[in-house]
Structure formats: C-alpha cells, structure tokens
C-alpha cells in the first residue's frame, strides 16, 4: 500500500455566483521515501493540491469529493483533532519564501521548541537538544547560538535551512516542499536543493516537490505529475516524461526551456495563457492553446490513457496510439 494515495480529489471554491473548481479528479500516490515532482504554470493548482493534502485549504475553498488516504486513513474525512496530529508531525511542509515563513517576533529556538512540544510530551531542554541536532543536520554553524536569534538576523539561505530543520523536527514521513528555492538566489538554490534531497534520502522521507522549474524536477524526482488548470494531464516516471513527453502541454513546457533553443534564436513559448478558473473552456482545458486541437478536444474532456509507463489525458496521444496499433496489425 502506498504511503499517501490521493483518489479523485475535487477541490472547489465557493464564491459569489457559484463554485469554481480548483482541482478536478486529482489522483496520484506517493510511496515511502519516494520523490515526486509536481509541475505546472502559476495557477495550475499546485499549491492548492499541497494544502488540500493536509486538508488545510483556506475558506472559501473546500474538498468537494475524493479521498486522501494517508496510511489507509482518509484525511478528507478526519476530525480537526486527528488532523492536527498528522500536520507537522507526519506530514511537514516547506514554503516558498523563507522571509515570510518564520514568525518575525519569536526566536528560532522558541519556534522550534514549540513545534516539538505541540506534538510530543517532552521537556523544553530535550526539545532544545532535538532542535540543535536538526540544525546541525542542515549544516548551520554554531546551532546553539542560532536558537536565541530572531529570523531577521539570518540570511535567506540560512532561514530556508532553518525551515528545513523545522520540517524535519518530528521525523515526518512526507515533506511537501512548495517551491522551496524560488525565493533564493541561484547559487544558494542548488545548495538548498542538494541538502533537502540528501536529508530525505538519509531519513527515508518521501518528498513531494512542487515547482515550475522542470530542470529541478528532472534532477530530483523519480516520478512527476504535470498539472494544467486544476487537472493532472500527465504523470509517470520523470525520465520518460522529460525524454519523451506525450501531452502537447508538457512538450511545450520542455521546449520552452532556454537550453532547448538555438543560441541567438527566439525562445519557444506556448501561445496564450492558462484560463482563469472562472472560464475554463469546455473539453480539454488546454485546447485553445493546443496546435493539435480537434472538435473532439473542444467537446469532451479526454480520459487517461497509458503510453508506456506514462498516464496521459490527451486525444492526440490516443490517436497516435491507435495509429501505431494499426500499423502494428498491418505489419506483423
């Protein structure tokens, strides 16, 4: 059984004039110690997906259907009290901006000790010892001294290390990292990413990495999900998707990487923009931007089909598979 299994998750936002669907039938699973990448443009629903795994979507959002099974128990149907025991303790989360994630008026030590004491009956002294230990693990020099410092006394990279240490405090099974390096400068990004990866491997923690950086995903994750307009449009082993993307959107994303273009040539871009939740086009949400779009694409939403190890929702891929089969039948 997978550690985390999300089945057909629907998340909606109740706003004036009806519900907006933010997540539509999301399904994926995460095994112990596995590293999963979640990519998509801004507004694709990546962060909403992360928050709904912890059943923490802010009002007016709500889980409209589906299951989030963590060790077989459904987080979507759990009481707030039981959820609190899982949040931070079994599933931790790392946010984008280290400047904003730490409470500016509490010392690092207070915040760490508090996080431990929220979940364990333990003396402050022991909690401090754990905190020092974790700070050392994320390679912060003189951790005892850091405990008495305030967040503003640390640099951005240092703060993100502290945040990773906080995420690791209670030895969680899963860490959800929502663009953990976006707010850092490029030299530090690689360092922090390597550190996070290292720690997850050492402690056998499953990592769900949310990012719009395909480069990072291809280096870090074993499997990846591509999201578009609240829907997973392609998922499978990272290497297969990067080398041979099936969905036209994923292909577009990969072609848009600067390293894919010829020197001096214009960079490729996917025409148009992601539809807002208020007017998602009928059929496949990507159809207005897709060069393969047919009437079928505009009419109905494609179901998932398998292409090798990859599961993808696209009629064009279906057609290609059908053609391939025909060719195979004709020429045995």
């Amino acid at each position, binding site marked *: 059984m997978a550690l985390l299994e999300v089945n057909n998750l629907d998340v909606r936002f109740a706003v004036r004039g009806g519900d907006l669907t933010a997540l539509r039938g999301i399904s994926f699973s995460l095994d112990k110690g596995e590293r999963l990448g979640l990519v998509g443009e801004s507004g694709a629903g990546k962060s909403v997906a992360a928050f709904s795994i912890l059943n923490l979507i802010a009002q007016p959002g709500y889980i409209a259907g589906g299951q989030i099974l963590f060790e077989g128990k459904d987080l979507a149907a759990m009481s707030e009290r039981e959820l609190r*025991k899982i*949040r931070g303790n079994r599933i*931790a989360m790392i*946010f984008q901006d280290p400047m904003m994630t*730490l409470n500016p*008026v*509490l010392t690092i030590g207070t915040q760490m000790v508090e996080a431990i004491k*929220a979940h364990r009956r333990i003396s402050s002294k022991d909690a401090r010892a754990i905190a020092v230990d974790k700070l050392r693990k994320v390679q912060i020099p003189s951790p005892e001294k850091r405990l008495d410092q305030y967040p503003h006394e640390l640099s951005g990279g240092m703060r993100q290390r502290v945040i990773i240490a906080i995420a690791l405090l209670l030895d969680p099974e899963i860490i959800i990292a929502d663009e953990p390096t976006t707010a850092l400068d490029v030299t530090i990004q690689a360092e922090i990413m390597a550190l996070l990866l290292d720690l997850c491997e050492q402690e056998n923690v499953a990592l769900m990495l949310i990012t719009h950086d395909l480069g990072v995903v291809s280096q870090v994750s074993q499997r990846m999900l591509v999201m578009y307009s609240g829907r997973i449009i392609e998922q499978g082993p990272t290497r297969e998707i990067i080398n041979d993307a099936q969905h036209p959107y994923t292909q577009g994303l990969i072609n848009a990487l600067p390293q894919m273009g010829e020197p001096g040539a214009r960079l490729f871009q996917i025409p148009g923009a992601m539809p807002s939740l208020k007017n998602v086009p009928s059929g496949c949400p990507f159809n207005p931007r897709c060069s393969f779009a047919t009437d079928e694409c505009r009419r109905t939403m494609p179901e998932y089909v398998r292409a090798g190890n990859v599961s993808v929702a696209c009629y064009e891929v279906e057609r290609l598979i059908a053609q391939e089969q025909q060719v195979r039948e004709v020429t045995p």
Partner: protein
Amino acid sequence: MMTATVSRWARVRDSFLWYSFKRDKVAIASFIVLLAMVLSAIFAPLLAPTNPYDLALIDIMNSELPPVGMSGADGAFPLGTDAQGRDMLSTILYGTRVSLMIGFGAVILQAVLGILFGLLAGYMGGRVDAVLMRIADVQLSFSTLMVAIIVGAVFKASFGSLMFGEIAIYMLIFIIGVAEWPQIARTVRASVLAEKKKEYVDAAKVMGFRTNRIMFRHILPNTLSPIFVIGTVQIANAIISEAALSFLGLGMPETQPSLGSLIKSGFDYIQSGSWWITLLPGLVLVVLVLVINLLGDWLRDVMNPRLYKG
C-alpha cells in the same frame, strides 16, 4: 541563566527603541516627569505630609490656607489647604494615585476585552467578526458619560452612598474600560487581518498548532506595537474621562478624591479667591495627560515609521 539576562539587557540597549529614545529629548523629559509622578503616586503614603483620608487629622480651622509665599500661608501646608482644611500637597499626591489607578486599570480592562474580541473577530472572520464588530459599534454609540450616569445611579441606589465610596474606583475602571474597548478591538482586528494572510500563519497551521495557540502565541505578538501605542493614548483618555466624570460629581467621592474631584471641590471657592484648590490639581492633571500623550506620540513614531507627526 546569567547569560540570558545579560543578553536581554544587551538586546534592549542595542534596540532601535532605546536608540530613538536616547535621541528624543521630549521623550526623555516626558518619561522622567511621568516616572516621577507615578513613583510619587505609588509612594504617596510615605511622601505625603498628612493622610487626607484620616478625618481625625483634619482641622476645619486650617481651611483655605494659601500656598507658601502668599500672605497668611502656613509652612506646614506648602501648597495650602482646601475648603475642609486638608493639605493640598497630600490630596494631590493621593489624587494622582487614584487617577493613575483608574487610568491604568481601565486600560488593562480595555486591553483584555479589546485584544480578546479583536483577535477573535479578525482571525475567525465571517459571522463571529460581524457579530463582535456590531457589538463594538453599539458600544461606541453610547457615550461614556451616559453609561456612567446610568451605571453610577444604579450603583448608588443599590449600595448606598457609604458603600459607594468604597467601590467607586472599581466602578469607574469598569465603566471607562467597557466604554472604550472597541477602540483597541478595532486596532487589533485590523492588524490581525493583515497578519493572518502572512505565510508564517500558514506555516503554523501546517505544523499542527491549535487555533488558540496560533492566535495568542503567533499573531498577537505581531500586533503588539499598535496596541502599545493606542494603549498609551488610552491611559491619558481614561484619566481625562475619569476627571470629567468626577467633575460632574459622577466619579470619585470627595472623601477619596481623584484629581477630577479635587478640581470640582475647589471650583465652588474659585470666586472667593481660593484659586489654588482648583488650579493646582488642574495643573497636575494637565501635565500628567500631556506627558502620557507625548510619550504616546513618540511611541507611535518609533513603532510605525509610515506615520509622520501630524
């Protein structure tokens, strides 16, 4: 433990608050004056030459003696005496004590109510917010004086004048505290609304903290600076409110005078030349309120760099 206290003092010494305090002469002067007044109020029983509450010490023959330096003054009463023969210096010291107690007490009550309701309204939002803020609006639409008159009348009728003297101070704290809590509640609510959108609140939720803990431990400390600023100004306001109520005869009884009731008690004699009975406590009241407001202004400038002196 030793190192912790040392570093705490070092932190204060290195802080911006201390730095700007050192450079602001008005703030220093106001603080010294306020400190002197608070200390002399606290130690009034030791400093005052006589105890104005002790009726046995009062001699009616000493009434309306002028302050030292005027003809007919008595060296035993440096600031003169009031119409009942009480030493003005002693009554002013004791009166400042009463005024300050009411000022601080009322603001503490305001702060408790205001912070509690402001946090709840701001953090919970929705219906809780709507209900609490409408209660605050209703509260604000009653004037403090009107509430005081009604409550005071009820208290006086039900406890009798003698008992009333004993509970008057608590009643005033209650009235002023309850009448003014919406000011603090609104300030707190506004900053909570801004704070709760920040990522550290999400992070706290993700860590599995209880709602209470997030509200009081994580959000509240971040809203403290406006509370300090408005709290300081509210102390001055509470003292003025108390003086106004006492002047109208709705506040402290004359046997246990505050600055306001001293002003009132002298007001009847101002025409007959005994100006000091009204003027001296009046001056003390003005200085007290002025230094508190000056400190409040300084605090506002320091804690909110976006505001400029108006």
